[in-house]
């Protein structure tokens, strides 16, 4: 799944969420989803989850997407990316955010992370019939 040419994305989530999100990206964007790797917290303790994430990221430039900032996934991601110039965490992952990411991987990381967070926020709307 890794790609030395651009930033890679790791989606860390509870249960089957991360795999489901990446499957959805693939249905919409096709092979562009290859830059995304799922990681579930299922059956993993905090240390194991963090070590697995660290192994997947390796020395790649990476955005680590997590579902819950305050959950075990968020904790592992923040610990794994602490003090790194080539790893950032984006919390509250959603599909529009991932779709934006797979076509924006050449954007510098320091611009990319806030841009993706903004994309995710902008995709949330309350629509009433009135």
């Amino acid at each position, binding site marked *: 799944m890794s790609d030395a040419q651009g930033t890679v994305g790791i989606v860390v989530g*509870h249960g089957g969420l991360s795999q489901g999100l990446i499957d959805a990206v693939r249905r919409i964007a096709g092979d562009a989803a290859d830059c995304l790797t799922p990681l579930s917290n299922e*059956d*993993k*303790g*905090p240390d*194991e989850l963090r070590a697995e994430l660290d192994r997947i990221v390796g020395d790649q430039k990476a955005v680590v997407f997590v579902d*819950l*900032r*305050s*959950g*075990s996934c*968020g*904790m592992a991601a*923040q*610990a794994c990316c*602490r003090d790194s110039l080539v790893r950032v965490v984006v919390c509250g992952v959603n599909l529009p955010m991932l779709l934006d990411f797979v076509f924006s991987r050449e954007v510098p990381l320091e611009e990319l992370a806030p841009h993706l967070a903004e994309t995710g926020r902008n995709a949330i709307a309350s629509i009433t019939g009135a």
Partner: protein
Amino acid sequence: MLYRVDERLIHGQVVIAWGHQLRPERYVIVDDHLAGSAWEQDLYRLGAGSADVVFATSDEARDALPEWRAAPVRTILLTRDVGSMCRLGESGALQGESVNLGGIHHGPDRAEALTYLHLTHEDMADLRALEAEGVEVTARDLPEAHGVTLATLLNADVG
């Protein structure tokens, strides 16, 4: 006050499921390592929302327990392992209280007691000792889940 052993400490299950039911105003994390790690404390504080978060070693927590119990502050006390909860409970400090076993994943020398709970033989001995000191020990991952008594856990084929 909820006393819970959960390897993940402040995380979704605690903050959302238990937090929704208990509406804690304070989390106390009893952990000898985290008590001295400022950056890790910051991470856990981010997860606690508006609730206060206190970090303490087992010894500090044992001394502070009477004060925490007496204060009208809804509190969830967390340890990441059985050993820390037992050290907290030394000298009968937890007598009359209930300890909730919430989640310990598989690991070296741990055997599955429940899908969310993996214990070593030392853990089992520690839990027996806790109960012998008048502490009720029950496994329950989520508030609505069926509680499993220590006696049931001990009768399970663990290890």
